[in-house]
């Protein structure tokens, strides 16, 4: 197992009060597997990522029964140990590549920085060679001239490819991609995600792909985790979950995009009513119940994550889902 997370809970100081924003999140990522985490704003997926990377904001408290990356316990790491893990075993790419690249340095400079961090013995020639190699792997022109370009000369898609190249410099075991294509155009999205798939096949690294777009996750992830308001509400192999989801929220997400609904134009779409509860709000019972069409009395108690009978690798958190027949 590349990453093992057991009962991760994160509390953040909000308005000077510690509130629980992520509750009991448990999942594993195997080598070569793409885990897709789906959720909308306020679901806690970004906080979960930050907790795994050790980048929570000051004042945050995270607890977990287990948090291991390739066998290393991530819970009590010092800053120095974190520096050894990040950029070596663990790499990440974020949503807006333009703001992640330093505008004052050339691409070559920034690539070299990542390469040297991974392998401190490299000399200039070797660094350059490796840079070109990485650029080639991500589908950019492997020219020395390209190394001299600045971030502002690149389009969004190219910048994101550079970010991926930088992330790959250390041959990481785990790559966390937090909404890597949200800021990009539709056609570029397809290119970047294809690239990630290809790299996964080539290097066998584990990938956590986070997005609010379930269609994207459906198409590119092996396993899926659906998060709502700080909890996992459904998990399992993608094909299983999208074809026969048990949780009403997952079903809502799958059905409410206009592309999926084969309704005639100008007719009202099916939508999930209501809004996501404010982050950290404490609630009695199921957190999705206020918006759920199938809520009943039992939903006043908090449901646990239950493994499915038909697919042991999948689980969901819903009382109504237990008796659900497709």
């Amino acid at each position, binding site marked *: 197992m590349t990453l093992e997370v057991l009962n991760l809970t994160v509390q953040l100081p909000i308005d000077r009060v510690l509130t629980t924003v992520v509750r009991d999140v448990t999942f594993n990522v195997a080598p070569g597997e793409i885990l897709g985490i789906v959720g909308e704003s306020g679901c806690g997926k970004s906080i979960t990522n930050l907790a795994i990377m050790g980048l*929570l904001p000051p004042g*945050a408290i995270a607890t977990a029964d287990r948090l291991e990356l390739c066998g290393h316990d991530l819970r009590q790491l010092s800053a120095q140990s974190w520096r050894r893990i990040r950029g070596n075993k663990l790499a990440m790419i974020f949503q807006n590549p333009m703001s992640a690249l330093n505008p004052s340095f050339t691409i070559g400079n920034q690539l070299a920085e990542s390469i040297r961090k991974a392998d401190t013995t490299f000399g200039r020639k070797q660094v350059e060679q490796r840079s070109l190699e990485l650029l080639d792997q991500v589908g950019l022109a492997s020219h020395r001239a390209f190394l001299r370009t600045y971030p502002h000369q690149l389009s969004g898609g190219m910048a994101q490819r550079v970010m991926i190249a930088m992330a790959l410099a250390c041959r990481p075991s785990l790559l966390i991609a937090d909404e890597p294509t949200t800021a990009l155009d539709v056609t570029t999205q397809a290119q970047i995600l294809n690239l990630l798939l290809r790299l996964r096949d080539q290097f066998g690294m584990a990938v956590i792909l986070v997005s609010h777009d379930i269609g994207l996750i459906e198409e590119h992830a092996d396993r899926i985790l659906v998060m709502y308001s700080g909890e996992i509400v459904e998990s399992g192999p993608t094909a299983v979950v999208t074809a026969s989801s048990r949780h009403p929220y997952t079903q809502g997400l799958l059905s409410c995009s206009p592309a999926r609904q084969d309704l005639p134009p100008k007719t009202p779409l099916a939508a999930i009513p209501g809004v996501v509860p404010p982050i950290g709000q404490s609630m009695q019972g199921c957190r999705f119940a206020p918006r759920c069409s199938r809520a009943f009395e039992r939903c006043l108690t908090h449901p646990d994550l239950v493994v499915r009978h038909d697919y042991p690798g999948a689980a969901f958190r819903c009382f109504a889902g237990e008796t659900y027949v497709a």
Partner: protein
Amino acid sequence: MQMFNTIKLSKGGMSLGLVSSGVIVLLVLSFLVPLVVDLDPYRLSDNLRASIGLWNGSGPVLGTDDLGRDVLARLVYGARNSVGIGLAVVLVSMSVGVPLGLFAGVYGGWIDKIIMRVTGILMTLPNILLAIVIVSVLGAGLLTAMCAATVVAIPGFIHIVRSISALEMKRQYVHAARTSGDSTLRILWTEVLPNCWVPIVAQATLGFGAAILNIAALDFLGLGAKPPMAEWGAMLADARPFIESNPNLIVLPGLSLAATILGFTLLGDSLQQWLNPRTGVHQ
């Protein structure tokens, strides 16, 4: 369950606030104390030869200067003068600089170009030098020194306000205000100006310290306050011949000056931190 990732709150911000509040308190006291205690900064001593010295059991607590004047009294009155002068300079430069910066940022175009060129030129000239030039032209005196300090402080306000207003004009809610029918002047007043206050306040507190320093420098050079006015810069100048025999005459005004300027600078800093919604999270 094991705990991890607890990050301690930084104490730096709080100590800044403490120091600056201490200084402010002292300055406020300088206004109140003379109402209670009888301090006369101008009374000369009869016996000039024996007058200079430290506290010798009776008489002025911090000693007297070469003319027999009470040093403590002069420090206190000097504080009042400094505060008053600093306030005047900051208020005037703010009332000139902020509108100019707003017009430059909001209206753009030629107004912006002209104002920024002039501001740029003024900012490249060293402050003290420019102040000296102005005073030399207008003639020495406290009023002209204050004018010089004001002129020197104005570009700072123009620059910061113009940057912010130019940025604000690009915001979507300014576009929305325009499509809601607001005129440009209205937008300036209701959308742009309220977002400028925080940096203006920070600039004003920093400017306070700078104004006091500039005036003190001019006084030291003899271009500002005329005797017998009690003012720290002038006290420094007067005390130069006695630097070896009575260092307290230089050290005390110098310390007061340094502490006041430091206090206001730190106040400006901690105000910026405090007003920034992202820092200052407590548990």
